[in-house]
């Protein structure tokens, strides 16, 4: 249990330290970030299909995808 609670806090600290060196990006400077190819998940429908295939063949695809999916047995 301890591990799971500390992980996010640790991650925050690490990245917080890194970020103090990052340049602030004004709202009007986010033209590139707003492009569709810059979305974290560019193609959600395809990601769904892929993760279903991966999770039916790999042990570790669970964990963040416990919901849905069925057993995909056989």
């Amino acid at each position, binding site marked *: 249990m301890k591990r799971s*609670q500390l992980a*996010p*806090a640790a991650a*925050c*600290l690490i*990245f*917080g*330290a890194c*970020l*103090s060196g*990052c340049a*602030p990006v*004004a*709202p*009007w*400077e*986010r*033209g590139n970030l*707003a*492009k569709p190819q810059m979305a974290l998940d560019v193609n959600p429908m395809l990601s769904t299909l892929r993760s279903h295939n991966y999770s039916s063949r790999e042990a570790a695809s669970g964990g963040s995808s416990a919901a849905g999916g069925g057993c995909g047995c056989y």
Partner: protein
Amino acid sequence: MNQRISVLLCAVLALILPIQAIFAVEAGGKAPDCGLTSMRDAQRYDLRQFHGKVLYVDFWASWCGPCAKSFPFLNSLHEKFSKEGLQILGVNLDENPADAKEFLGKYPADFTVAADADEQCARDFDVKAMPSSYLVDRKGVVRHIQLGFRPGEAKELQSLVERLLAEHAGAQ
């Protein structure tokens, strides 16, 4: 435990929050003055020159989805109230002017569209989001800051514009 995490998070956030917004434009404060260039005919505008009118300054960019949604609304405001003293300024913040031109081809603007090439206006107004709109009354006081555009809020904005138009209507 929960509290400790949030304390940690807060510490992180404190590190990353840039020190800014010290000279923020607030509702109730004086609108800043800055220069713009018309996208139609390269004419220079100075915000001061609209003193006495109700000024609707709308910061937009071609890549911003809600901006496109706001254009029909701004067109209708322009059509209804420009004669009563409403001046709409669509301030473009695209880095590439060609993107803005293409956008205007798709979503034509009847109101004045101007470029803020050196981003001076955006900085002076301390633009927080895209789109951002600033409603300035006839005395040059910022009366409302609208961040983003949602169709459901259009009605409210319009009635505010009407109210501001009615204030000091004879002042000029």
